[in-house]
């Protein structure tokens, strides 16, 4: 090494560069060399043909001489592909690990990836993973957590890649299927992976292998994943409709025009977004009875009075017993395109109400539609007939039971006495007085 540095310690030492007219420094800083992972190796360990002194340019260093396994792995991954090698800068050994300052693999960080993937690393650093890492959270995901070991890193489009569309949920699950981890990091939804796998999205991805069905990153983003409390997050409440719209564009169009969508767009806190009715990770088939019945209750979380009065009717009671064939909220009001009754587009507007009833009651006419599906017998002002009929019925009920209640209570001891008297034999004397 002494021999080599006799020349190469000269800061001005240079040779012709590949680019015409430029020069390349061949200065070697001894301090850097001493600090590298290869500090214990002599120069000739890498520059095998070097003699001191030498005139000729030395052949390129081949790391594979010692690191044959890594070289082979690189060949299997995207970083060793022809396309990558053609890129500038190419992901050569030195590009990531350095030359004389060669660093141990464990000490490499996301900074290493910046050289080529600056945009992705930038997004990552602003993400919940990147920020946690920056705060010193050793469990937060880095590039390798999702993309796999660097040498064998695969393109997202490769079915073997951990970030392949169909494989991503399992990759995220390495951390997010662990309820303990969720607890440690204050993540609200602990069973998120299990819920997703049972959802319509999860089944489409994992069972049917649909590339168009949402996986984790379709909703949460990939490098830019942010907490849902972060206004910049794709799953921040106000951003959810737009996020879902990336696939469900038609539904979004209806929703955005609806009273719910408009209210949500204006920032109304209570206005429902997609996940309020469909949930986030447990999204179910809307054709299924469980969802259809549960969503009634969901409507009722805001429309409490409407739910209460609905439950007073045949419609509301039968659905409560689990039958979906009768009218549910959306059968009359619509789902994504809900409009207030005052809007002529509304399915319950005076102009449309008859045809809405006719969906189930084909013979329904104008008179039929005078039935009030949300009548309230307690409301004397709006429903006087119902109020007084109800009052009459209750009076009849109370009156009858009050009278016969007293009648029975008085009769019981008397009848008891009569029976005892008869058993003791005195009753045999005569049937009557």
């Amino acid at each position: 090494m002494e021999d080599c540095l006799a020349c190469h310690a000269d800061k001005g030492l240079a040779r012709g560069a590949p680019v015409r007219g430029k020069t390349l420094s061949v200065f070697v800083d001894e301090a850097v060399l001493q600090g590298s992972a290869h500090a214990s190796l002599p120069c000739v360990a890498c520059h095998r043909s070097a003699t001191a002194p030498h005139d000729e340019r030395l052949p390129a260093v081949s790391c594979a001489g010692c690191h044959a396994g890594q070289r082979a792995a690189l060949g299997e991954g995207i970083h060793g592909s022809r396309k990558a090698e053609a890129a500038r800068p190419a992901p050569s050994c030195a590009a990531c690990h350095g030359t004389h300052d060669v660093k141990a693999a464990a000490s490499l960080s996301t900074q290493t990836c910046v050289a080529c993937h600056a945009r992705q690393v930038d997004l990552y650093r602003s993400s919940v993973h990147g920020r946690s890492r920056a705060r010193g959270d050793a469990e937060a995901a880095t590039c390798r957590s999702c993309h796999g070991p660097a040498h064998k890193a695969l393109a997202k489009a490769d079915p073997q890649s951990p970030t392949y569309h169909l494989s991503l949920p399992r990759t995220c699950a390495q951390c997010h299927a662990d309820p303990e981890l969720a607890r440690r990091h204050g993540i609200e939804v602990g069973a998120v992976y299990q819920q997703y796998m049972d959802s319509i999205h999860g089944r489409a991805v994992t069972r049917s292998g649909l590339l168009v069905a949402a996986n984790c990153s379709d909703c949460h983003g990939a490098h830019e994943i942010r907490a849902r409390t972060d206004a910049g997050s794709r799953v921040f409440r106000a951003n959810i409709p737009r996020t879902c719209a990336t696939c469900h564009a038609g539904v979004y169009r209806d929703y955005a025009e609806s009273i719910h969508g408009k209210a949500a767009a204006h920032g109304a806190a209570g206005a429902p977004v997609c996940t309020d009715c469909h949930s986030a990770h447990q999204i179910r088939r809307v054709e299924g009875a469980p969802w259809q019945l549960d969503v009634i209750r969901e409507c009722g979380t805001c429309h409490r009075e409407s739910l209460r009065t609905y439950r007073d009717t045949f419609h509301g009671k039968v659905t409560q017993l689990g039958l979906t064939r009768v009218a549910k909220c959306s059968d009359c009001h619509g789902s994504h395109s809900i409009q207030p009754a005052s809007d002529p587009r509304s399915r319950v507007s005076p102009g449309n109400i008859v045809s809405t009833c006719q969906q189930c009651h084909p013979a329904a006419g104008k008179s039929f539609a005078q039935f009030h599906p949300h009548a309230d017998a307690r409301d004397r002002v709006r429903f006087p007939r119902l109020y007084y009929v109800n009052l009459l019925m209750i009076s009849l009920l109370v009156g009858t039971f009050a009278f016969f209640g007293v009648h029975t209570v008085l009769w019981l001891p008397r009848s008891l006495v009569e029976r005892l008297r008869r058993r003791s034999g005195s009753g045999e004397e005569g049937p009557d007085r």
Partner: protein
Amino acid sequence: MSGGERHYFRLNLYHRVLHGMVIASFLGLAVTGLPLKYAHTGWGKGLSLALGGPFTTGYLHRFFALVTFVYFALHLGYLVRLALAGRHGMFWGPESMVPQPRDLVQMVQHMRYFVGLGPRPRFDRWAYWEKFDYWAVFWGIAIIGSSGLLLWFPAFFSRVLPGWTFNLAIIIHSDEALLAVGFIFTIHFFNTHLRPEKFPMDPVIFTGRVSEEEFRRDHPAEYERLKRQGRLEGLQADPPPLWLRNFSRVVGFSALAIGLVLIWLIIGTALR
């Protein structure tokens, strides 16, 4: 029920068969209707499920409604036949079901007797509470039946009735049914079966006959009157045979049990 004692017919076969239909359809309607009224309770859901789900329960409910309409029609036919035959005293008098001033007097007397202020009134063929039961069913079928039909065929009835009548029909059908169920399973059960003198049940509605002792005690005015008119002998009967007594026990206790369980559930829900 001593073996050799003299018995008299109180109810003929037609009465008993019709009342059998009343029991079957009433219990059927109650069991299939209450799950809907109490859809918000666990037992309502469970009962509906046990009956095959709300769809099947609805079908059964309508089936028992048809049974009700059939026995109602049979009874009306019976009345018409009696009227055409010129049955004396059908609309007024001691043998009539029609409420009369005497019933009001006897009711007051009976309640005075409860508290020891007078003797027991001498009832004729129908005591006032028996008449009340009869008319309660009559009224109940008219009210519950008509409102039920309205809800069964809303589109048809909406041709002549405004739609808001269905709102009324829901309330009327449900409340009147609660009244009927509550009344039968408590007051009627007590008056007829569960009061100590009859406890645990009065089998007359199944056997059709009463012992002479019971007849003279429960309906003394009728007994005396029939004797006077010389009609008593014609009503004499053998004591009910064993099979009939067993039949009444099985059917009667089953009906009582179903009714008491239902009323227990209803009261339990109301008190919760």
